């Protein structure tokens, strides 16, 4: 197992360089002069623009800029934003918040989604199954920003149960509402996935055998049905970690959270290469680690799966 993990970790290195190179190139190719745009409709003297461009090596060809960036990384310097803040400051500020938000959302969707999906699957065709279907279709079809505004209006502004926006430091209590919004769509998918998988497994041979062996219903459901049904769900959750971490732009905007999504969005519109690349690189790593964890969980969940030597 450890050899396998080690090899997977080694794979991170080429992926990291490939990803940063590609992303740097894409940011570099963005139309428009980022420095000119910094000043809006009132350009400073050309000389000032030139001086700033030289500070950020913007006059150099792409490949030189990229090597400045990579060289910086190797010496522990991730570069600075156009406002002069070290990118590492932004990383340290944004990632913990987004991470907490994503984990909270993941916990919501995993626990509630699997539970509801399991019950719906076991009671296929009954009232509970039908209502779960309706609710999940509703959540899938309502755009996040609509749901976000509605929940914010009802639970924060009208009822006053939560703060309207997340306060400084993003305490966990403030993140509950945004995490619910963020989790909503994936929650619905997980309910559907679990339900389908559970109802498939209900008729599987090994379940019949287990029941015939005289195992209790409880043991059959929890060990034989549920565990085998979780494989597609775990795959989905693994992919979803990445989506939750980057895809929170809308939710972050509604609840004024200074997370990864908003920071990257702003950096892209400003053409701030170092910021975008550093953030995306960290996200690529998170994504790959999440997938590694998923692959390890496969083996844990399904005895038939072996990890390649």
């Amino acid at each position, binding site marked *: 197992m450890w050899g396998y993990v080690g090899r997977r970790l080694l794979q991170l290195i080429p992926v990291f360089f490939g990803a940063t190179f590609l992303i740097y190139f894409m940011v570099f190719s963005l139309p428009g002069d980022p420095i000119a745009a910094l000043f809006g409709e009132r350009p400073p003297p050309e000389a000032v623009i030139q001086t700033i461009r030289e500070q950020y090596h913007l006059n150099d060809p792409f490949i030189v800029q990229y090597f400045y960036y990579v060289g910086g990384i190797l010496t522990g310097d991730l570069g600075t934003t156009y406002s002069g803040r070290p990118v590492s400051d932004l990383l340290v500020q944004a990632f913990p918040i987004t991470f907490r938000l994503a984990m909270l959302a993941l916990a919501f969707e995993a626990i509630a989604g699997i539970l509801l999906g399991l019950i719906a699957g076991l009671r296929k065709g009954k009232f509970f199954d039908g209502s779960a279907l309706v609710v999940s279709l509703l959540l899938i079809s309502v755009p996040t920003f609509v749901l976000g505004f509605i929940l914010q209006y009802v639970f924060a502004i009208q009822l006053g149960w939560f703060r309207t926006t997340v306060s*400084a430091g993003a305490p966990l209590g403030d993140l509950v509402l945004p995490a619910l919004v963020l989790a909503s769509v994936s929650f619905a998918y997980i309910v559907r996935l679990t339900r389908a998988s559970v109802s498939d497994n209900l008729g599987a041979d090994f379940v019949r055998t287990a029941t015939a062996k005289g195992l209790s219903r409880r043991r059959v459901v929890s060990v034989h049905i549920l565990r085998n049904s979780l494989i597609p769900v775990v795959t989905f959750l693994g992919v979803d970690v990445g989506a939750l971490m980057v895809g929170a732009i809308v939710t972050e905007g509604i609840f004024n959270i200074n997370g990864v999504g908003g920071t990257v969005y702003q950096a892209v519109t400003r053409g701030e290469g170092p910021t975008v690349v550093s953030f995306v690189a960290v996200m690529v790593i998170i994504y790959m680690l999440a997938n590694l964890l998923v692959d390890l969980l496969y083996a844990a969940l399904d005895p038939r799966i*072996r990890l390649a030597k």
Partner: protein
Amino acid sequence: MRFNRIGTAAVGLGLATALVLTGCAAEDDTASTSAEGIITTNGSEPQNPLVTTNTTEVGGGKILTSIYAGLVSYDAAGEISNEVAESLETDDSITWTVTLKDGWTFTNGEAVTASSFVNAWNYGALITNAQSSSYFFDNIVGYTDVNAMIDDPAGTLDEDGSVLQVPAPTAETMSGLTVVDDQTFTVELVAAEADWPLRLGYTAYMPLPEVAFEDMEAFGENPIGNGPYMLDGEGAWEHDIDIDLVANPDYAGERVPANEGVTMRFYATLDAAYADMQGGNLDVLDAVPDSAFETYETEFDGRTANQPAAVFQAINIPQYLEHWTGEEGELRRAAISRAINRDEITEFIFQGTRTPATDFTSPVIDGYSDELEGAEVLEYDADIAADLWAQADAIAPYGDTVFDIAYNSDGGHQAWVDAATQSISNALGITAQGKPYPTFADALTDRAAGTLTGATRAGWQADYPSLYNFLAPNYQTGAGSNYEGYSSEEFDNLLDEGSVAPDVETATGFYQDAQEVLLKDLPTIPLWYANVNGVWGDQVDNVVFGWDSVPLYDEITKG
């Protein structure tokens, strides 16, 4: 190899739990509490460290005007009164003698002296410091020695493709600034400028303490000022979150705060700020999101503001396009102007949060007039528009060229551009349409390079309350923001005469005449003035918005 299944699952679960827990542990306890007497309001993360000569955007600007006091300050109407200055005297509008009042100090105890101003201005002008406000000093003698200009607005590249080098400065300080003694300094301008004092309340002209010049970037994180407010200790500025300002007990001017402090929370979207306003987490909000235009006045009944701001919005038609110059161009420009139904667009698209334009400046500026000669060209009349267009067609037929209006689609402009082009199409029987660019930077590239295929949206927010600040940067021959290449000798002369006029009233007359030239040539088609829309909660009173759309924080009372 076979896994110990339960074991791996346990490891996975444990790992996940640990991650969530470490995440939680990173919490801190600075959750904003609306303390007694502290006003909470909206802001946005300053783009740069808080340095007076390097802040041209609103987010940093409203912090700096709160923590600094300059030679003059502005009241709600944009009228100036001396703040640190005892007097500003001149005989010829060229050489100015500035005398300071006694008793002003920075919050670190250092006295505010003539050198505090002169050193700050010299720092701002020096090219190697690359300060974005450096051009504010370009009318001071010696500026070209410290900040040589490259006379090529379009290019950062030479003709052969090589990168232009920034010329090294030949001096460190401007020879036009002379410190006479601690309380006095003189300023020599390149040309006479009667309303020069008007600009001295702008952030670029604030004084800086000695400590600033040791490490300007570090200073900008914890700036030390002499204004009505000061930062609430080291680290009062939490990046991307908020900044805490408290009343400065040593402040020696007229803007003495009626409250104990101001906390500005930074919002990425106005909608989130508005939600906080509705949820009672914010005392004052100095803007209203589009989504609330229809409802904010009923929701915050009696606690709203909706008044014109010093923001002028227009569409520019480049001078380099065929059909848009000479007599034909004049007719066509007038036709376009006549074809846009400003009243209807401001009422239905903007829900009354814009005011139709009657000149090229703003109603909040001293010297504004809605009775300029020729201003009727800004009134909608489809018949006259069609007639003017037909006259132009008689000179040279326009054909079926599409008339497009370039705009950046990330700025909420699509709705009005679509309405305006519809209005033009209907009145003139041509195809008019919007031409979206993904970002502001992208749109600016074509403007700066002079490669537009049609009109472009344009806007201007005044830095300081003066007609000149609206006119010179945008329409003077070769001026910095005159991207569309307008050039009129008559207009330039009137501006020059205005700036050498002996007093402000005479100057205003020239500036109004200059605008009448613009009304004839229409290098830009004025559309409307943006309004400032604000709301405040029932905890606070006496909320008044200044000429620059920012509330006068020092006058707000709470509790």
